């Protein structure tokens, strides 16, 4: 008994010990994240969390906002003061804000920006932006050529874009790195030297501590023009791998914001006065893919042969009609999402054709289409046949995803009613995506997060080498022409019309069955003010947030 008494005494001492009370500092905002960033160097920030953190540490020349009235991106200067376009729109003068300093006291200049473009495009560096400078003048290794820039003075320079390119300010969206820190490091060593590189920053917050697998602590940079007295003193990205623990911590005020809230928890969280719910709409959709080409023939020698089940657009239309997407939206997403008709998101108001509504759930119409295409139940076993081919296939899903499990089960039941038999086969995600990109699967369920600004060529262009994400092997000449036109077109009403034409093709061709758009539900503490949850995300422009504290 004596020992137990000692234990109880020790526990009490710990509980009343000074400094052990509140975990959270009043002037700090804590964002719960599910995994630790692998890098907080802007060059190697690949995941969403890494990009969110580096966006704060290394600001860009421009700032992207969401114009909710127009339903489009709005671009404005951030580190830049102004942009002056050349007459032919193939060059732009960039004037930087004066007086921005790095955390070591050195001034940010045009040299830093020019150097950053060079660094990000260098193949030796292997940065996340390598190869994406399509409108710039680059060499055969996709590195930006030095003649792309001409320094005007310490705070200004001109960018010369490639002939016949279609540049915009979005091409200048690049985190700016300090030249004086990076120029001394051998380019192919930078990737291995994160620990040795001193984090010299110029953002609204500076790095205070990175406790591996625990937290990344950022502290307000009083010298930054982006902060004021109401800006929180600290922003903490806290790693909480378990979803249920994140919810508990949200309720207990241990964390202030968590994303990807499950629909089942919305009602419960809504009861808490300290929690506000927000929604990122129209950025992610799920689809059921029907491989338009034969996966066996393609895997063997890249031969394009029409898939004998899904090669016909009318059959794919029947599959879409035969799946009750509305039931998934209602029963699984609890209406935190909506049925989809194409990959063009409804959030892009001008580009989205509201007249093209998702196909209804109509199993009778689906049966009629299949019948007209020659699919009949010849042997009365409940499964349709055409010649000696039975309409039976395997539907693959990545394992460990309850939403895809639910959707697959519903699709199986729905299609069985119209005489189609399928077996659901979950595959470990890494293996699943490898097979999907190699076009080895016949049918599968997956999802895409759509890029902003809109970009579709890599998903739907017929040249499969140029469109690695066209895993379903969709090929349509009309679509190809539109994709090329759109790629070379500036934002305009004509371009919006072309997006609408694209939607009409998707509606007719059903390259895949577009299932539903999913809302990313965000829960945050009511003490956070000036948070703007838009299609660009929740943890965005965090320096604009304020607190009551």
């Amino acid at each position, binding site marked *: 008994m004596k*020992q137990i008494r000692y234990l109880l005494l020790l526990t009490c001492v710990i509980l009343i010990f000074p400094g052990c009370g509140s975990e959270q500092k009043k002037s700090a905002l804590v964002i719960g994240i599910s995994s630790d960033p692998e890098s907080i160097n802007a060059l190697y920030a*690949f995941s969403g969390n890494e990009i969110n953190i580096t966006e704060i540490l290394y600001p860009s020349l421009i700032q992207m906002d969401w114009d909710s009235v127009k339903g489009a991106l709005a671009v404005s200067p951030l580190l830049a003061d102004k942009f002056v376009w050349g007459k032919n729109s193939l060059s732009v003068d960039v004037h930087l804000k004066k007086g921005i300093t790095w955390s070591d006291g050195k001034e940010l200049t045009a040299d830093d920006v020019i150097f950053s473009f060079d660094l990000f495009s260098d193949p030796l560096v292997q940065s996340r932006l*390598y190869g994406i400078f399509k409108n710039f003048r680059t060499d055969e290794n996709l590195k930006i050529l030095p003649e792309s820039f001409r320094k005007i003075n310490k705070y200004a320079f001109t960018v010369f874009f490639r002939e016949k390119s279609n540049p915009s300010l979005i091409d200048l969206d690049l985190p700016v790195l300090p030249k004086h820190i990076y120029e001394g490091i051998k380019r192919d060593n930078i990737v291995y030297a994160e620990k040795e590189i001193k984090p010299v920053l110029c953002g609204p917050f500076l790095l205070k501590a990175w406790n591996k697998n625990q937290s990344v602590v950022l502290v307000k940079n009083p010298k930054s023009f982006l902060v004021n007295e109401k800006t929180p003193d600290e922003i903490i990205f*806290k790693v*909480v791998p378990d979803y249920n623990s994140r919810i508990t911590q949200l309720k*207990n005020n241990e964390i202030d914001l968590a994303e990807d809230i499950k629909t089942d928890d919305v009602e419960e969280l809504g009861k808490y006065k300290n929690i506000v719910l927000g929604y990122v709409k129209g950025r992610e959709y799920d689809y059921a893919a029907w491989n338009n080409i034969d996966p066996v023939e393609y895997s063997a020698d890249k031969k394009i042969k029409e898939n004998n089940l899904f090669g016909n657009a009318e059959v794919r239309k029947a599959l879409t009609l035969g799946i009750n997407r509305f039931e998934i939206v209602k029963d699984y997403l609890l209406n935190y999402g909506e049925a989809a008709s194409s990959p063009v998101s409804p959030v892009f108001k001008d580009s989205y054709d509201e007249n093209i509504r998702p196909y209804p759930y109509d199993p009778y119409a689906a049966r009629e289409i299949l019948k007209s295409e020659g699919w009949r139940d010849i042997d009365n076993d409940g499964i349709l046949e055409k010649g000696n081919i039975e309409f039976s296939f395997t539907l693959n899903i990545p394992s460990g995803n309850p939403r895809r499990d639910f959707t697959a089960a519903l699709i199986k039941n729905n299609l069985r009613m119209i005489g189609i038999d399928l077996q659901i086969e979950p595959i470990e995600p*890494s293996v699943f995506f490898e097979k999907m990109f190699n076009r080895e699967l016949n049918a599968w369920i997956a999802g*895409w997060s759509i890029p902003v600004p809109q*970009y579709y060529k890599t998903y739907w262009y017929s040249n499969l080498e140029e469109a690695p994400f066209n895993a379903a092997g969709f090929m349509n000449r009309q679509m190809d022409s539109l994709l090329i036109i759109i790629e070379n077109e500036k934002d305009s009403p004509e371009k919006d019309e072309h997006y609408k034409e694209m939607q009409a093709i998707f509606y007719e061709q059903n390259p895949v069955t577009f299932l539903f758009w999913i809302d990313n539900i965000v829960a945050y503490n009511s003490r956070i003010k000036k948070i703007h949850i838009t299609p660009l995300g929740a943890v965005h422009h965090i320096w604009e947030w304020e607190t009551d504290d």
Partner: protein
Amino acid sequence: MIKAGSLIIKRIVNSFLLLFLLATFVFLLLRAAPGDPVSKYISPTLHPQLAENLRDSFGLNESALSQYIDFITETFTGNLGISFNYRVPVASVIMEFLPFTIMLALLSFSLQMMIAIYFSLKAAGKKGSKRDKFISETSLLIYALPSFFIGVLLIYLFSELAGIFPSSGVKSFSYDEMNILEKLADIIKHLILPLITLTVTGAAVMYRYLRTNMDEVFNSGYVMYLRSNGVGEKEIIRKHILPNSISPLIAVAGIELGILLSGTLITEVIFGLPGMGRLTMMAILQRDYPLVTGCALVSGVLIVMSNFIADLVKYKLDKRLLAKGILD
């Protein structure tokens, strides 16, 4: 003494061979398994050439033999290769997670042993009493509970309802501004719930082993002889029954310590702890070949070591084992 020395040398040599085979097996298994280490670099927002360049720099385009030679060389230099994800030597990644795992494992293991011995002595002192039955039934109940259930229950009771203990992490954000005593208290406060989760099931297992062994020794001839000579019950239990019952427990304890040292994934995930379990899991999911092999190797070393130590303790307690060749 000479035999004990040669035994140790023999065990060390065998252990090296075992670890070499383990590392080779893991290396081969990873290469044979499906999945692409650069798949996370295949994205509509990234240039396809980036993935190819990375594949090249990871050495994945080289032959399996060449990769194996590189792996062996890196292992002998102590780097264990370069992690694909962290881009630093695997050894330095592991060293960020290993100290915490060792600390937690040793704390939990010590508590397990203390609790098991304490309650065994309490129960054995009054064999067949209500207390004995209560402890036995409770240990069985705890033994049957999965650790994730215990963890979630503790968080619900002590974090969500009572708000006494933090539900995750190792230290507070204000840790750096605390004095030494506050720091100590802060860490203890963070570790109490994970330690309970890790300890109770293991303690229940050890208690049941020890209690069964004690029962057997309890009725042995020499114990009856001691009793008939008027030696006190407490003295018999502490000086004779306990030392003779503990030997079979040591083998179980060796395995338990090995498991704890390799990382305890579920507890680490629930409480957000930076341990080897989470590191290994993430490395497997992301197909970080060098890191997976490094984690397997380190886990192997820790398991071999803990079993070796357990055997040495067994030998210390009962030198007849050496003559029987049981420890070879």
